[in-house]
């Protein structure tokens, strides 16, 4: 999308009566990566509340997008308060959270909807947020959001919001054949990837830990525990940790043993599949599967666009490659340059040591 050029920008009239544009001298030539301004520094009373569960101390992209959405929609008189349920080790300044409140006891691993609702309702009662934003996901927030909507009967609410701005929200209806619009409601449950998290400002992200105050006297639910399906049985699309092999992997046995020690699922590039090293259902990419693992270990994969398409939703990509200029290295969050076989073997040994040390500590 192009921005229209301002026709009234600085100009002077040259000798022949021609209009000449004066180039404004860029003030930040020397420091191209200037600090972004803080969106609002005032200590504000009015607030937008964003609620999300953390996972392993961080927020998923979907939750970050929801905070960014609130920051984009908030005016200079409104605070963005992010309420994080579960531990948080991440800084939320660059997604625009002015205040961050953490309730570590209410993490996603435990099913305690009544306790969550009681504490959040108490918070809503005390701060009276103008609007509430929640990611509409399947990892606790979508469920919590709907409980909240049912509980806060007087508030207007829309779920499955696919489009939003200051004036309206939109959601699909009738199985996606029509789209329905309404004014921005008080509670919004937002679908993933509807917000650009690139912000021209930052926020102060003042943090406070909040111990839960409301305890319950009775409980309708009893959590009997979370279980995870074994990595070998789970569909690749659902896998959370994938060890993936490309043309740079000579020894499939080493890769399989690495996947086994990491309790990870196995994926492969097209070349590795074409070579007959892996079955077709392991292929990841444009003509294979699209995966969304938290951790993706790309071993000896160059990172052709067709492959990268399949891993665009992966959170942490780690590359092992002999070639530091491979496209996969640009995509990866961590790249280790070296021979796949050697590093895999070293990793297997290290993990085995770490596991046995853990066992000794536990014993």
């Amino acid at each position: 999308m192009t921005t229209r050029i301002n026709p009234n920008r600085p100009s002077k009239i040259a000798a022949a009566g021609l209009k000449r544009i004066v180039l404004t001298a860029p003030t930040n030539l020397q420091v191209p990566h200037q600090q972004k301004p803080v969106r609002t520094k005032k200590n504000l009373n009015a607030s937008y509340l964003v609620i999300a569960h953390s996972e392993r101390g961080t927020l998923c992209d979907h939750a970050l997008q929801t905070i960014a959405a609130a920051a984009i929609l908030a005016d200079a008189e409104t605070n963005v308060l992010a309420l994080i349920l579960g531990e948080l080790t991440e800084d939320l300044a660059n997604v625009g959270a002015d205040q961050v409140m953490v309730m570590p006891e209410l993490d996603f691993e435990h099913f305690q909807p009544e306790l969550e609702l009681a504490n959040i309702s108490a918070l809503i009662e005390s701060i009276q947020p103008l609007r509430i934003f929640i990611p509409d996901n399947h990892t606790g927030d979508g469920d919590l959001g709907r409980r909240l909507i049912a509980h806060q009967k007087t508030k207007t609410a829309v779920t499955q919001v696919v489009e939003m701005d200051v004036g309206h929200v939109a959601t699909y209806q009738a199985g996606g054949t029509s789209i329905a619009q309404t004014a921005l409601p008080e509670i919004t449950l937002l679908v993933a990837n509807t917000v650009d998290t690139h912000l021209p400002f930052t926020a102060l992200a003042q943090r406070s830990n909040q111990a839960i105050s409301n305890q319950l006297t009775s409980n309708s639910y009893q959590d009997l525990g979370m279980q995870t399906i074994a990595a070998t049985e789970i569909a690749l699309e659902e896998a959370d940790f994938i060890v993936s092999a490309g043309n740079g992997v000579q020894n499939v046995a080493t890769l399989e043993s690495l996947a086994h020690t990491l309790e990870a699922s196995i994926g492969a590039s097209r070349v590795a599949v074409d070579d007959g090293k892996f079955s077709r259902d392991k292929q990841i990419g444009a003509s294979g599967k699209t995966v969304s693992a938290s951790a993706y270990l790309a071993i000896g994969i160059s990172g052709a666009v067709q492959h990268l398409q399949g891993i665009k939703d992966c959170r942490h990509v780690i590359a092992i490659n002999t070639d530091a200029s491979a496209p996969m290295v640009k995509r990866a969050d961590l790249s280790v340059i070296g021979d796949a076989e050697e590093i895999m073997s070293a990793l297997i040994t290290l993990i085995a040591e770490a596991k046995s040390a853990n066992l000794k500590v536990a014993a």
Partner: protein
Amino acid sequence: MNIKRIAVLVSTGRHPTSGVPRHCRNDSLALTIGIDLSHSDAAKLDVLHAGNANNPALMDYLALGADQISVIPTEPDTDIVDSLAERLGDTDLILTGSRAENDQDSGLLPYLLAEKLNIPIVANVLEVRQIGDKLEVLQFFPKGKRRRVAVNLPAVIAIHPLAAVELRFAYARQLQGKIHSLSTPVDRNQATSIMQWQIQQATRKPNKLKAQENLTGHERLLSAITSENKGGTVVNDGNSVEKAQVILSYLREHQLITF
């Protein structure tokens, strides 16, 4: 406590391309689970639909094994939650699909109903079984996670589309089954929703929300050629054990492994 009354709430859907009315798969899963439970518990099964009794899609539910479907007539302004709640006061277990295909696919109905009846709700359920006076359910989560929850009865249970249930349609049952209209509730509550909706054909893609930026031409050029993206750490030095150690530390730092 024995489950004496089970209610299954069914909605109707349409085929996405032909538009032909048909059953809603999620609700059919809930119905099949309800039928199986009612047999093992000798409980009475009510199948309820709020809408139009002449909708041909309801036939599918008869074929699936519902003996009778009770239809609560609705006007555009009736509050479905209220009308349903009136009929469900003495029900021990209410089963629904997790998200209807048609109308407002908001997934809110089970929650609103549970709140109205003041009973617990568990959504995205794959399996249901009765243990003592409680119901034990298996909940679906992405990334291969499942959670077992015991919930007090009465309760609302919304079934997940991946529930391992086989749908068995039989034409003979469709002929035997009956659909009957219930009377319109007397003191009909007006829908409390104050929201005004504007509905259009979904012909365009939704627009992404973006922050407004007032950049000079120079800044825009700069942002086009430099990217804010960190591009990740690249480790070139060290022997393979040190490099493996870097990977292990990264995995630990981001809590991707537990050892």
